[in-house]
């Protein structure tokens, strides 16, 4: 069932703003639609019906990568237009207002909040690498979102040293506990989604999120 590609002819753009595991995300989307393309241009972004903002690396490098390609304002306008956007890992962090990795840097500010290092009090290895459960802050909160797994437990693959702290609790879509420390593992504001974990690397449950995102288009 996961292989069904009946999602219509709408086009999903993967934004290439430097160095990313682009093949991993494109083949995950490719399980559910043939209309996926990779672009590093504003015209490509503007022609899309939905956008995935992937990304690995540091916050500043990520924003510089968008800036250098003239994509920063374009992504903001895209998100405000109401079309679906999914940020993954660094791509999710960039959706917030500010990042504190190697300095203080402005993000896209599409969702109010900050990106900060795991607190010192966390007595486990950083980067946090591995599989952890995600859960909704309140039961039922995932209904009619791309996280609608029909109530099943969901384990996702994480690899990060920084965490997202949205200003408003209503923007917290998922929580995760690492070594007893609870942090925000996904954010949402209407059409804008961000996952700290990698759904494209989280086996069938992660692909479920990708499938649901494709279904929004």
């Amino acid at each position, binding site marked *: 069932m996961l292989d069904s590609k009946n999602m219509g002819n709408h086009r999903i753009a993967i934004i290439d703003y430097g*160095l*990313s*595991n*682009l*093949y*991993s995300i494109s*083949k*995950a989307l490719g399980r559910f639609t043939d209309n996926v393309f990779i672009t590093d241009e504003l015209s490509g972004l503007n022609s899309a019906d939905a956008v995935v903002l992937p990304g*690995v*690396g*540091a916050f500043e490098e990520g924003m510089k990568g968008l800036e250098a390609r003239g994509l920063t304002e374009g992504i903001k306008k895209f998100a405000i237009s109401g079309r679906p956007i999914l940020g993954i890992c660094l791509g999710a962090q960039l959706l917030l207002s500010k990042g504190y990795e190697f300095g203080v840097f402005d993000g896209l500010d599409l969702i109010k909040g900050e990106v900060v290092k795991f607190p010192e009090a966390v007595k*486990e*290895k*950083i*980067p946090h*690498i*591995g*599989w*952890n459960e995600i859960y909704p802050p309140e039961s039922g909160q995932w209904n009619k979102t791309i996280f609608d797994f029909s109530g099943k437990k969901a*384990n996702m*693959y994480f*690899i*990060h*040293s920084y965490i997202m702290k949205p200003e408003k609790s209503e923007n917290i879509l998922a929580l995760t*506990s*690492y*070594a*007893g420390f609870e942090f925000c593992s996904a954010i949402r504001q209407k059409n804008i989604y961000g996952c700290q974990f*990698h759904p*494209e*690397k*989280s*086996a*069938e449950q*992660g*692909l479920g999120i990708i499938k649901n995102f494709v279904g929004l288009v």
Partner: protein
Amino acid sequence: MKNIRVIPLLHIKGPNVVKPVQTEALRIVGDPKELAEKYYQDGADEIIYLDIVASLYQRSFDFDLLKSVSRDIFVPFTVGGGIRTIQDIKNALRVGADKVAVNTHAIKNPDFLKEAARVFGSQCVVLFVEAKKIEEGKWEAYTDGGREKTGLDAVEWAKRGVDLGVGEILITSIDRDGTQKGYESELVSAITSWAPISVIAHGGAGDFQTAEDVILRNKADAIALSSSFHYKNFSVKELKERLFSKGIDVRL
């Protein structure tokens, strides 16, 4: 809570998965794509893919094979063997790798690790340490699939790698690889006792007990296995269920 990762490791030679025993006596095990997909379906938390001749013969990596093997794998994929340039890493990431494991080239040029971590982020760079025991409590780092001595102390080299910004350490015991006699516990502890980053133990996994021991006693954050899965001592799923029954958190 932290889940321990269970990671099948594929040694690639030409178009085949092979299994070295203490780096020699290669045996052909099977087709890389078939095995990778089987292990993925069976619940592998990641897959490690090491081309064991690319480094030795200065041969360039077979990116087409990698692309075909990784196509239907939706868990993290770490690729190593013959990674020598930033462009090699870019190419690997373009055909399905999420991380790269670097050994030989990093020993010849340690700043390569720093550069790779700066460009791709620490999370992308795994330091692959191949260690051979030289005396009690001492191991030497080797390169080129365990063939070439370096004169470097393996534990000191791992520390240097952490300082240079790698995100994980994959530690292989050359003496135990392929023997199924158990992980080299002192070696694993010699790294996990100080490492601030994740350590993947490899080399010597045999029965369930060997896996439990390296996790519970030697504090490995992840375990890599090859022979045990290739020769069907148990499946990925059976191992994870067993670990879980012993109170070890794993993704089931």
